[in-house]
């Protein structure tokens, strides 16, 4: 068992998968010599050479489309989009091309590609470098959406995403890259579509993902001291969604809070809350509550930035209202 940073765990996953399968290659801006803005691709160029570690021009739409084309002929490309905000430039290739091909070709071909990117606020990067846009991808049939919270999950999920035969949108969080955690030795594979109960509890279920998992764990620890037993379910992947684990937890505790950083309106939380109310209504002691980002562009100034996304206090307050 090694303790690795989130970014090191991702790096290990890329190394291992590129070693294992010569058809895996990576493309993106500044990922070669420089090793990526967050050092996730560090060392890959030296080990695998420029044929498989491709530094691209700033042309997101086309190099993402190139991943679709390379995937169609049997490669397993991993493209890096520096910020999820920039993924807005590639929506045709992801939504109209990658997500549709297997379906509209009648199963003649698949698109085994991964789009790695990162989102989230917290560094004063302002409105075009801080968004949480997973709901846009979650909404589109044909895509898988993965959002790991810990180094162990980041490693295991990225490896599983690369081996998956469908396009996977793999969304990291910029504030998680330097966080540390245990990554088991040997092959770490975390299946897509399997949530992880990060902390068991009896009174309230917190359903969350990505960095908010850490926020929820902190809130749960504080609430525990007040005698409230809180369960924290880390979804890990949004598509496929592990309904079974969500519903089992909801039925057992009867009280559910869905927590995410993305803006509340049209967020994934609304969909999960509706699903729980449709399928577990009789076992609930109250309505499912959402704690989410505010419906605003993210500002630059740190004081007003931090009130845009849920804090530990917000989560504690939300739970206290329910019990």
């Amino acid at each position, binding site marked *: 068992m090694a303790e690795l940073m989130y970014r090191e765990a991702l790096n290990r996953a890329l190394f291992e998968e590129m070693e294992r399968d010569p*058809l895996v*290659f990576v*493309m993106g801006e500044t990922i070669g010599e420089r090793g990526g803005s967050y050092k996730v691709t560090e060392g890959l160029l030296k080990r695998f050479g420029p*044929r*498989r570690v*491709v530094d*691209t*021009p700033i*042309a997101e*739409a*086309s*190099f*993402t*489309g*190139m*991943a*679709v*084309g*390379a*995937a*169609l*002929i*049997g*490669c397993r*490309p991993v493209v890096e989009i520096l910020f999820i905000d920039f993924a807005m430039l590639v929506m*045709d*290739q992801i939504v*109209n*091309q990658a997500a*549709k*091909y297997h*379906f*509209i*070709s*009648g*199963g*003649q*071909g698949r698109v085994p590609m991964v789009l790695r990117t990162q989102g989230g606020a917290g560094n004063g990067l302002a409105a075009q470098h801080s968004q949480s846009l997973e709901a846009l991808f979650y909404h589109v049939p044909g895509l898988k959406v993965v959002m790991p919270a810990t180094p162990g999950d980041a490693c295991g999920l990225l490896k599983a995403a690369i081996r998956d035969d469908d396009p996977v949108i793999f969304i990291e969080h910029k504030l998680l890259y330097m966080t540390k955690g245990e990554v088991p030795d040997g092959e770490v594979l975390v299946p897509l579509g399997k949530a992880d109960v990060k902390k068991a509890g009896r009174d309230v279920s917190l359903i969350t993902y990505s960095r908010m998992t850490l926020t929820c764990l902190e809130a749960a620890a504080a609430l525990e001291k007040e005698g409230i037993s809180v369960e924290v379910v880390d979804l890990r992947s949004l598509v*496929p*969604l592990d*309904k079974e684990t969500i519903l089992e937890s909801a039925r057992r505790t009867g009280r559910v809070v869905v927590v995410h950083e993305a803006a509340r309106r049209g967020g994934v939380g609304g969909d999960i809350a509706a699903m729980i109310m449709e399928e577990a209504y009789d076992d609930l002691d109250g309505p499912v509550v959402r704690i989410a980002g505010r419906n605003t562009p993210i500002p630059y100034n740190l004081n007003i930035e931090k009130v845009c996304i849920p804090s530990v206090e917000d989560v504690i307050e939300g739970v206290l209202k329910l019990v």
Partner: protein
Amino acid sequence: MKEEVTAAGGGPPDAAAGAPLDRGLLLGIYRNIYATRRFELQCIELYREGFIRGYLHPYLGEEAIAAGVCAALRRSDYIVSTHRGHGHCISKGADLKRMMAEIMGRVDGYCAGRGGSMHISSRKDNNLGANGIVGGGIPIATGAAMGIKVKGTDQVVVDFFSDGASNNGVFAESLNLAGVFRLPIVYVLENNHYAVSTPIECSTGCCDLAGRGPAFGVPGVCVDGNDAVQVYQETRRAVERARRGEGPTLIEAKTFRHGGHHINDPGLYMDAQKLAEWKARDPILLMRRVLAEEPAVAEIEARVDRELEAAVAFGKNSPEPSVEEFLAAISD
């Protein structure tokens, strides 16, 4: 048009400079031009009869491009097609029966009735597929060429797209990428002079679209898109260049749509005089002139007519997709 067709310098090994082109090759090109023409006319009829729905963008008048280009390709080479893609599909070797079934939305179609005309692909021929988004295929084709490089094979990709697509941002991005990575790809820009209804002179201040290639380090060449032999010869050169690892080429093939943008567009905005001039140089007429003394032409036409008749019957007899099976396959 010269009576005797010759391959220019640097031509294919089967036709050294000055030697006539192979008879089988020319007949093959003619077969695909004729089959595409007949196929499109048949589709229009079936559309009017209600057997085909949705959008249908006929390739009428442009057939020589696909036929000439694909004659220069191996089966293992890839093509990426467009919404006006029936000619590409036929010329790359598709079975008319399965094409017709797809366009009629039936289960025996290439895409099991899920794609239709705008999304048809035939992976057995390495046709990666048509596209409903103008320009959407350009990055995909470029990526297939990148994939070839990663795999280390000697395949080549041909990307068909239009003058309209060449005004889309991904055209510039992709040519730039192909240029910098010297990818094994030939961009075939089918300049039919209209982007939906907008004439080329109203959509760009640049009259020579092939000239856009050199700006990205991609050689550009302009050909008469109605002359299948010329299209073949230029494609052959570009394909060999790509196969040798010398990088991409942009071929602009000038042509003219014989009708509106799609079947329900009468094309009233089209320049009647230009249309008449281009129709006088119809790709079928030009190719028949090349093959003037060739007795096999009539036989080829009769064979295509029979194939097409069988394709229509096959399509009509193929079942509609089952609603129950479709719903059962949706995972959540």
